[in-house]
């Protein structure tokens, strides 16, 4: 009997906890489209990345807006090194006209 009561309490608690999520999942009026990344065919870094997308768009966004400029700066500096090696002056522009 005790075990049955325990199971019932767990089931009722779970229902109350999960009901709002079930309602959200059911979509209500005007709910936005939720895109979920399919991680089944992915592994390693790619799987980690798409899991993060599924779990938190906030962390996903924060990392994206950190990674984009960082990659930009790295590529910019690398290109600087290449241009210097070729012998192009990167600090002066002689043409002074409209």
């Amino acid at each position, binding site marked *: 009997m005790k075990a049955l009561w325990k199971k019932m309490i767990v089931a009722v608690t779970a229902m109350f906890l999960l009901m709002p999520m079930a309602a959200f999942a059911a979509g209500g009026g005007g709910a936005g489209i939720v895109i979920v990344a399919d991680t089944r065919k992915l592994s390693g870094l790619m799987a980690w990345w798409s899991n993060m997308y599924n779990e938190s768009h906030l962390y996903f966004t924060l990392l994206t*807006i950190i990674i*984009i400029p960082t990659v*930009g700066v790295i590529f910019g500096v690398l*290109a600087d090194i290449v241009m210097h090696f070729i012998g192009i002056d990167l600090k002066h522009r002689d043409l*002074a006209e409209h």
Partner: protein
Amino acid sequence: MDWLYILMPISGVTIFWPGLIILGVGVGIIGGFFGMGGAWMVTPGLNILGFPMAFAIGTDIAHMAGKSLISTMRHGKFGNVDYKLGLIMIVGTVAGFEVGAQMIMWLERLGSVDKVVRYIYLVLLAFIAWMVFHDVAKRRAKQRAAAAAGQEVDKLATGIEWHKTLHKIKIPPMVHLNVAGIYCSAWLPIFVSFLTGWLAGILGIGGGLIRMPALIYLMGCPTHVAVGTDLFEVMISGLYGAGSYTYKGRTELVAAIIMLIGAAMGAQVGSVATKYIKGYGIRIAFGLAVIGCIISIILKLIPNYFPEAKAATDIMATWLINGLVVALSAYITVKMVQGAKREIAAKKARG
């Protein structure tokens, strides 16, 4: 040949990754040279490679932020970026963009707005193209008149001089924009950026295509400074846009980074090419790009009247944009290589 394809982790589509690099190189060159994001070229390109439209826009904006950063770094070293002007303009751009976007939502509630937006875009681009070639023609007339009088036209002379009239407005506070060489009311850049931001908001574009000529013809910026300062603006708005689209789950960072590999090279070529091409050379090439854009929009409007022509006009628009990207990139690259060769040879001759 499976290794040439990569599975995108978020959108779940398989993409030909060398295509992303090639696209990145092309728009990197054009963006670094003209000072714009180039969304009108990239978004259809990504769509052709297989991205759903929603992901194409978000991915384009994310790569645009990184690419503009690279170009801004380069232009900054050449002294082409007026950071003070850029920062003042951000205020007007953001406010104008929000007003424009709200206005479009209001218009959408009234009825179909897509066609109206395309027509406004078309008229605006036609005006920009006219402005560029009218300016070029007027400057050439000045050159001919000076040559007839046995003189040489001033290097800083321009064809259209609307900015001189606008600079006469002396509403305080006045600002010195040293890099651009402008002394004007602070309200002028705020007004110009509000106007261009408002138009960009209405048209749903980044705005570089409008802001670059506005900086030249309304603010009176030298062409190179207009290009550099516009890229600074594109970089900031691109980061904001990337954050916004990514939060909505519409950015494929892996694709953006692959594109950045190409765009990093392209942006360098485009930015360095401005060192070797005169301001009016940049204006003429920009005018031609705008004409290409006009034709592609006309091709997209034709099916509204002749629905049976849709398949043909879509193919033509795609080939036109691709052809334009290839032709402009090739022209800019050739000019950059020629200029670099001359510079290196001159250095060697000096010892």
